[in-house]
């Protein structure tokens, strides 16, 4: 929808909003509310078109070059600058354009951002948000598509969020910027255009709190990011087969919301965990192990995991399409538990 449509469309309050718009307004609102919020990253200022996909468009024009800065292609320098500014009271939001590029800054993220609070005995802390986008489905091949959240979730000191709706994107971004500790904020490329209802400006979605996005009684499907959308669709397919699926969007990967998941699985007795990241050693294994231990003896079927295939994300379209989970694969995994 272009801006000119606004004059002939329904009142703004009723217009749906995209994840793209939600992120842009979350950043703008945070910067307007708090002069300490800074934004930096490759191409993110308006002379560089406000980011390669435009999430940060308008920010440098509105808030100035001191607070909104395009950087060299230097991921260590970007995260280092964010860390340094954060420990003296600023609240930087650093964009690492694509999640695979976080590999170039792992020392800054894992050895420094995650650990400075602990190693300084609480004298310093690192309130930064690292925004990064990823996901298969845009023919970007093996170095531009990976979900690497398990690496970060495995690191004490980091938080990892991965919303799937505009409301959660906005509310989690605001909470991430408020957070006194570092947050890895994962955005899915192919779902930037996903629409959702308007929400109250200034909304906060708490970090660490999942959301039941479909109620059901036979099985719990736990997911996040774009796979929450696919899991919801799988729930609809299964409903026509008289399988009632409860779908949970974790929204936060680390720390994940054990309580909501356990309450649901206690009720359904079955669980499938779904993520686009490759299955081995993934977030699904962690959740499966915890739920299996807590509910051992009361489960009505083994816990199943659905993840990306254990391969670099392929380029060729048919291969790339075969890589991630989708609604049909998720539904198949659910059906297998009812045989």
């Amino acid at each position: 929808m272009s801006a000119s449509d606004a004059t002939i469309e329904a009142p703004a309050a009723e217009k749906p909003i995209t994840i793209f718009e939600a992120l842009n307004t979350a950043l703008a609102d945070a910067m307007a509310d708090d002069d300490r919020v800074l934004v930096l990253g490759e191409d993110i200022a308006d002379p560089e078109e406000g980011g390669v996909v435009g999430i940060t468009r308008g920010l440098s024009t509105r808030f100035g070059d001191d607070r909104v800065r395009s950087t060299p292609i230097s991921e260590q320098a970007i995260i280092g600058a964010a860390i340094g500014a954060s420990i003296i009271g600023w609240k930087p939001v650093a964009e690492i354009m694509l999640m695979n590029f976080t590999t170039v800054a792992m020392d800054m993220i894992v050895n420094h951002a995650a650990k400075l609070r602990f190693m300084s005995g609480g004298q310093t802390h690192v309130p930064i948000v690292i925004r990064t986008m990823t996901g298969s489905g845009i023919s970007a091949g093996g170095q531009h598509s990976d979900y690497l959240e398990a690496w970060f979730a495995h690191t004490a000191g980091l938080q990892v969020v991965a919303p799937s709706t505009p409301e959660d994107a906005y509310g989690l971004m605001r909470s991430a910027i408020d957070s006194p500790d570092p947050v890895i904020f994962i955005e899915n490329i192919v779902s930037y255009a996903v629409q959702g209802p308007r929400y109250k400006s200034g909304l906060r979605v708490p970090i660490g709190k999942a959301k039941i996005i479909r109620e059901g009684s036979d099985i719990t499907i736990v997911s996040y990011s774009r796979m929450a959308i696919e899991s919801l669709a799988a729930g609809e397919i299964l409903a026509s087969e008289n399988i009632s699926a409860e779908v949970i969007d974790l929204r936060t990967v680390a720390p994940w919301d054990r309580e909501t998941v356990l309450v649901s699985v206690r009720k359904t007795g079955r669980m499938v965990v779904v993520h686009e990241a490759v299955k081995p050693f993934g977030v699904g294994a962690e959740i499966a192990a915890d739920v299996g231990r807590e509910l051992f003896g009361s489960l009505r079927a083994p816990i199943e995991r659905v993840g990306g295939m254990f391969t670099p994300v392929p380029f060729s379209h048919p291969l790339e399409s075969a890589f991630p989970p989708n609604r049909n694969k998720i539904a198949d995994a659910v059906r297998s538990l009812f045989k």
Partner: protein
Amino acid sequence: MKNNYEPDGATQVDIYRRMALLKANDEQSRRVIKTGRLLMPYYSYRGQEVIPSAVSANLTDGDYICTIYRGIHDMLAKGLPLKDLWAEIAGRVDGTCKGKGGPMHLTYPSKGIMVTTGIVGSSMPIANGLAWGSQIAKDGRVTVAYFGDGASNIGAFHESLNLASVWKLPVIFVCQNNQFAEHTTYEKCTGGKQIADRAFGYGIPGYRIDGNDPIEVYATAREAIERARAGDGPTLIEAMTFRFFGHVFGDADGYMDKDRKKAAMAADPLPRFRAKLVADGHSTEAELAAMEETIDQDVEAAIQFALASPFPDIAEIRRDIYEHEVFI
């Protein structure tokens, strides 16, 4: 060097006081570790005392430093209290970081000691962020990033110099070229005649100086710090020095040429500068001896304080990971 940047007599004595403190602290550290009363990796800075002593004489408590695992001298010169230091390296609760950081992660923000890293080169990207914050706040503070010659070959060095240049950050990159990257000599692992030359590739001033000459280090640092405070951007200072001992305490340092080492130790800058202060009339033998005596007593008191301090409660293992305690 501008002639009027030569430190006055009182400043020279103050620089010597810092040098003598650093030397005494290093000697005591090695002694205490040798007797088994401390268990820690120790990276001796003996021989490199002049650099942070003369740099710090130009800094205020409000100015920031980021340093590295071989950086206890940088922090002591910046004002890190001895008792907090010793309790930390002994892993005690009265340490700067409650014993949770140790010698490689000492932190003391009230004296501007913001980050100490155990990763070669990683002081520099973070120093840029501190400097960016000062630039936006227009608070006139500068940040010094200390690192060694070995760090000039890691990517973070290059990314940091470039970003500091294009953003004109108030940061001073101080390379303490002790001529060894851990065990490997400068000549064997560093391309180009001098690290200072790399500054020109990033469009910033770069100087190679005698890092064992307090007057030269003071004046060069002062010029760089004034440039940074004035908003004219970063400087790279390559201060030449020599590490008297091996990379880490206990290594046999068989990789260090014995003649070079002997010559460097014979040219120890401390007695030379001490004699100069007396010869120039800035101090007397008696005054300096009294100063050294006080330092020795202070270090000894810090050791006793540290060894009497309790270890942290085991509950500390769950604290300071996030703002709120975790129970995983």
